[in-house]
C-alpha cells in the first residue's frame, strides 16, 4: 500500500474482510467459485472469462495488461475503508442500544443503513451481482437495496411519475406522490405479464383481480400496506361530471424486504376467500363512445393495522384523500392502467351480474 495511506490510516489492515462470511451474509459473495476466481484473481489467459460462454470468444479474449496488481491494491484499499466503516457501524450499534429517545434512535438507524451501504457497495462481488446477476439480489442487504433503488430511480420511478402526471392521476386522485417503493402489477388469471404504467388493458385481461409486488428500499420488518384501486372517470350524468369509484381495496397487507409478493397465496385462504379485502373486486367496465378511464393503484404505508368501516365505501363518489387521512395512510407508491370499451365488456358485466352498459353520444352545448 502506498506511503500516504500508511501514514494516514491507523487501523490495522485485515486484507480478507470481504472473504470473511462469519459476520457478513453469504449472499454478499459470489456463489460461482470460478467466477469469483476470475473476478478477484483476474481472467486467466488459458481459460478466458467465465462470463463469456462461447469457447472461441473465450480464447480470443485478452485483458488489459497491468490490471491485476492494480486491482489487488485497489481491493485492499477498499477493504481497509470498509473495515473502518464496520468499526463505525459497531459504535453506532452500541449507541443505539444505549439510547432511549425514539428520534435519536431513528437518526442513528438511518446513519447505520447509510454506512452499511458504503461498507459493501464497492465490493466487486456485490457490484458484479448487482450489475449482472439481478436474480441473485438479496434484498435484506443494504448494498443490494441501494443498487436496486438506483436502477429503479433511473427508469421505473421516472416512468411512473411521467405517466401519473401526464394522465393527471395526480391531482385527480391524490394530490401528489413521492414514490418510495417500486410497485409492479400483473393480472395472472388472464396470463398477462407485468403491466407498464399507463398501458391500455383489454377488459378480458382485467376481468379478475391483479397481484402486486411492493419493493421497499429501506430496511423494513412487519410493515403493513393498504392498496386501493380507484377510477376517477366514472360518469355522473345527473351532475354532468365525474365520480371516483373504489374498484378494489386491500388493507393490512404484510410485505418485507425479501418477501415482496402480494399474490393470491398470500391474500387468500385455501378456498379463495380474501382476508384483506375491504370491498370485492369490481372490474373495469367502460361504456361505449366515452373517453378512456384511468385506474389508479395507490399503495399506502400503514402506521398500524387498520379496521375499515364498509359504510364509507358505499358512497358513489369515493374520496380517496379523506380515506387516506382518516386511516393515517401515507402514499408511497402507485401504478395505473387505462381501459376503454371493447366487445368483451358485456361478458365481464354478465360474469359479475352487472346491469347492461349504456351507449353514449357527445352532448354539445
Amino acid at each position: 500500500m502506498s506511503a500516504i495511506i500508511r501514514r494516514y490510516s491507523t487501523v490495522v489492515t485485515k486484507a480478507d474482510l470481504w472473504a470473511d462470511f462469519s459476520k457478513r451474509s453469504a449472499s454478499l459473495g459470489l456463489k460461482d467459485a470460478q467466477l469469483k476466481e476470475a473476478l478477484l484473481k483476474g481472467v486467466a489467459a488459458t481459460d478466458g472469462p467465465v462470463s463469456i460462454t462461447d469457447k472461441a470468444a473465450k480464447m480470443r479474449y485478452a485483458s488489459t495488461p497491468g490490471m491485476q496488481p492494480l486491482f489487488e491494491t485497489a481491493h485492499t484499499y477498499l477493504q481497509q475503508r470498509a473495515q473502518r466503516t464496520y468499526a463505525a457501524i459497531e459504535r453506532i450499534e452500541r449507541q443505539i442500544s444505549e439510547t432511549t429517545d425514539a428520534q435519536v434512535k431513528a437518526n442513528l438507524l438511518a446513519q447505520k443503513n447509510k454506512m452499511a451501504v458504503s461498507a459493501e457497495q464497492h465490493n466487486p462481488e456485490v457490484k458484479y451481482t448487482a450489475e449482472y446477476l439481478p436474480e441473485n439480489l438479496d434484498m435484506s442487504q443494504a448494498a443490494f437495496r441501494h443498487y436496486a433503488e438506483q436502477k429503479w430511480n433511473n427508469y421505473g420511478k421516472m416512468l411512473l411519475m411521467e405517466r401519473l402526471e401526464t394522465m393527471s392521476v395526480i391531482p385527480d386522485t391524490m394530490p401528489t406522490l413521492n414514490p418510495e417503493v417500486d410497485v409492479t402489477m400483473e393480472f395472472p388469471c388472464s396470463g398477462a405479464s407485468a403491466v407498464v404504467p399507463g398501458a391500455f388493458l383489454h377488459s378480458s385481461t382485467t376481468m379478475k383481480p391483479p397481484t402486486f409486488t411492493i419493493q421497499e428500499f429501506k430496511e423494513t420488518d412487519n410493515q403493513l400496506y393498504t392498496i386501493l384501486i380507484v377510477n376517477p372517470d366514472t360518469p355522473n350524468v345527473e351532475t354532468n361530471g365525474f365520480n371516483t369509484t373504489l374498484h378494489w381495496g386491500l388493507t393490512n397487507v404484510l410485505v418485507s424486504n425479501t418477501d415482496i409478493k402480494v399474490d393470491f397465496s398470500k391474500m387468500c385462504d385455501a378456498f379463495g376467500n380474501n382476508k384483506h379485502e375491504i370491498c370485492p373486486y369490481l372490474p373495469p367496465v367502460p361504456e361505449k363512445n366515452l373517453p378512456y378511464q384511468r385506474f389508479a393503484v395507490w399503495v399506502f404505508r400503514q402506521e398500524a393495522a387498520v379496521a375499515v368501516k364498509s359504510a364509507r365505501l358505499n358512497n358513489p363518489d369515493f374520496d380517496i384523500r379523506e380515506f387516506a387521512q382518516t386511516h393515517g395512510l401515507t402514499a408511497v407508491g402507485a401504478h395505473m392502467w387505462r381501459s376503454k370499451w371493447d366487445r368483451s365488456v358485456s361478458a365481464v358485466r354478465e360474469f359479475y351480474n352487472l346491469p347492461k352498459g349504456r351507449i353514449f353520444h357527445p352532448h354539445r352545448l
Partner: protein
Amino acid sequence: MTGVNFQFTRGKRNKANRTRSPATERVLTQLKMISQRRKQPKLLQVCQEDHIRHETITTAFKLYRQEINANRAKLLLKQYESIKYAMEDLEQINSYLFHEANTNQKGKRFDLEMRIPTEYPPNQIWLHDYTPAEVAEKK
C-alpha cells in the same frame, strides 16, 4: 487542390499506371494524416468481470485521491489556525512586532539557488563551501 496536373499515360488510365504530381501526393498525404479512417483502433470491449474490475479500480483510486485531498485541506486549515493564534497573541503583547510581522513583503522573490526536485540528483548534490558575498568581500 491547386497544382494538380495529370501526366499523360499510354492506354487506359487505371490504378496501376496512375501517376500523380508530387504536389498532389503531398496534399493526399496530408489529408491522409488527419483522416481517422483506417487509423482508429477497434472498439475496446471488456468482459463482465473486467468491467467490474475496472470500476473497482477507478472507484478505489477516486476515493484514495479524495482522502489525500481531504487530509491536505485539513492540514492547511490547521496551519492557518496556528498562524492566527500566534498573530493574535503577538498583537496582545507587542504592537511593534505585530506590525512588522504583518507587513506585506512586496516584491519578495525566491532565491536563484532554489531548485525544483528532479528525478535524479545532480552531480554535486549540495554546495557545501558557500560563502556569502559580504563575508567574502571583507576577507
